[in-house]
């Protein structure tokens, strides 16, 4: 069979599989896990663009995710906004915050954004906890209404499953478009050589800023959907550890790929479920804190041994490759010096 038609056959099979899955699955537990995977995938697709294309990292993605969720919760419960306007606010607000902190920091060396997002991440989490009336403090907010689009009320898991499926598909298509465009190419060029990218007319700071704002936009989208799905929120899921988990998901799935984030999220969510069951067997009355050791180990080992992640991306960085770059950098400084 020719490759092309095999591809279409696979896509058709996957689509049918996707559509009938809720009817085949008997447990709501598995369906809810799939929904969570879908929501996280939205967030990690954005982070993947930031990390894999623009070569930047954010340690505050959970905060953008949280801002999206809290925007929905606060606007619908406290200010009785409609569910769609609140949803839009959930997307716009994180993007605005990202634009404000990204603009000055992305003009600087690469690690400044990492620090700024780390600070924003923790700060936002403190705000959720200490926000009193507005955020509901540590116990959070309840009574978030079901999302209503036209006459459709998303009050059951299978409906959310389809909704999330559509969003994930759209985001996949968008990222694929981006990858094949002048913008995606330029972002990858910046990652390879910022000097050469600038010399070819690319305003690298501006482009990186757009990638960062895009990642916050997708995190907000995920957060908004999350709030409508769970219908109550508290600060806990939006802490620094969650930001780290998003980074791990992006890294292990493979940076600079479209499917990598889905793979990374699925693996991490599965691992989280397994650990939740496994850890208490070895460490009696252990809480969730212990899981984080494994996450740290995975992160460190991946970055050392397989920084390109599990699925092959465009970037295959080897040791000799990076040595070559180091050598080039040194040549450059020497040549500038003389």
């Amino acid at each position, binding site marked *: 069979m020719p490759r092309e038609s095999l591809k279409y056959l696979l896509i058709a099979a996957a689509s049918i599989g996707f559509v009938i899955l809720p009817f085949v699955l008997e447990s709501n537990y598995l369906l809810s896990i799939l929904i969570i995977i879908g929501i996280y995938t939205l967030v990690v697709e954005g982070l993947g663009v930031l990390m894999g294309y623009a070569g930047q990292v954010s340690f505050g993605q959970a905060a953008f995710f949280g801002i999206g969720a809290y925007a929905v919760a606060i606007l619908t419960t406290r200010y009785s906004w409609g569910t769609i306007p609140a949803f839009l606010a959930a997307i716009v607000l994180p993007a605005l915050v990202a634009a404000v902190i990204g603009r000055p920091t992305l003009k600087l060396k690469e690690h400044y954004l990492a620090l*700024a997002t*780390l*600070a924003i991440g923790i700060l936002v989490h403190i705000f959720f906890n200490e926000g009193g009336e507005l955020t509901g403090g540590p116990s959070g907010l309840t009574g978030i209404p079901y999302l209503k689009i036209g006459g459709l009320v998303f009050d059951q898991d299978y409906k959310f499953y389809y909704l999330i499926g559509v969003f994930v598909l759209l985001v996949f298509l968008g990222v694929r478009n981006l990858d094949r465009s002048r913008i995606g190419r330029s972002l990858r060029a910046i990652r390879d050589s910022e000097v050469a990218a600038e010399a070819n007319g690319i305003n690298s700071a501006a482009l990186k800023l757009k990638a960062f704002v895009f990642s916050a936009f997708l995190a907000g989208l995920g957060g908004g959907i999350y709030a409508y799905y769970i219908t109550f929120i508290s600060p806990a899921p939006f802490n620094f550890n969650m930001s780290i988990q998003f980074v791990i998901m992006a890294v292990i799935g493979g940076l600079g790929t479209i499917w990598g984030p889905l793979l990374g999220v699925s693996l991490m969510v599965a691992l989280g479920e397994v650990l939740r069951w496994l850890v208490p067997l070895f460490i009696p009355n252990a809480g969730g804190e212990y899981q*984080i050791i494994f996450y740290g180990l995975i992160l*460190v080992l991946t970055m050392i041994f397989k*920084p390109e992640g599990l699925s092959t991306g465009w970037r295959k960085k080897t040791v000799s490759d990076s040595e070559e770059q180091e050598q080039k950098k040194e040549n450059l400084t020497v040549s500038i010096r003389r």
Partner: protein
Amino acid sequence: MHVNLYLQFLISGLTLGSIYALIALAIVTIYNITGILNMAQGEFVALGALTACTFYSAGFSLPASFLISVVIIAIVGALIERLAINPVRNASSITLIIITIGLSIIIRGLALLIWGTNPYSLPAFTQGGPLQVFGAAINPQSIWVFGLLIVTVTGLFVFMEKTYWGKAVRACVINRMAAKLMGINPDILSLMAFVISGALGAAAGVFITPITLATYDMGFALGLKGFVAAIIGGINNVGGAIIGGLLLGVLEVFGAGLISSGLKDAIALIVLIIVLLFRPQGIIGVVIGRKV
């Protein structure tokens, strides 16, 4: 009456600030030598404090516990450099930051496994009640903390100015390539940087424990404050890091005392964001102090 209160705030702020300054010093040392932002620095502090507590409660004397802890954490620093940093030393700075974040998570998790969630304590280094100065009470332990900062800064200064290795470090900071050509091995310098910051972190942890107690998760906040201090000072500036640390400590205590104690941790972060947004090269500037 108010003046006394402010003086009291100032003293507590400087005590806290000295600890931040010490952590910032360690961060700046590693950054200048290796170009790495070590996000695990705070964990060295926590490990140092907890290790000393364990040895002390096992019957060792306080000075012995201190020394053992400093040596152990220096070795931990060396191990981390060899196992996790050295193999990827040419990777991008983003990769390296992610690795040090991962390390901090692992260390915190292991500390939780070993020591649990309960706080541990050490007795004050010298007995006796607080000293009264102009109506403000100074905890004698604060004086020890100031002393540690002064000794460390002096020691670092002598090391940099007078010893061969100190000069090698400075050469390496100015130009890695040139240092290599002069026969200085940047590999060994990188190892040294992690050993020094492990020891420094542990010392800071032991000295602060009589005041704040030691917990497995104390490192995260302290490391973060160290970063803020280093950034206020302009990340590669030793003098700036010290002033940045002291400034941050004072700011925090005044903020917590005068506005709200719930905001104590937020103050450092707000300062960090303001500095990053408006004066990312640091507010102390290059006028004061010099590079390591």
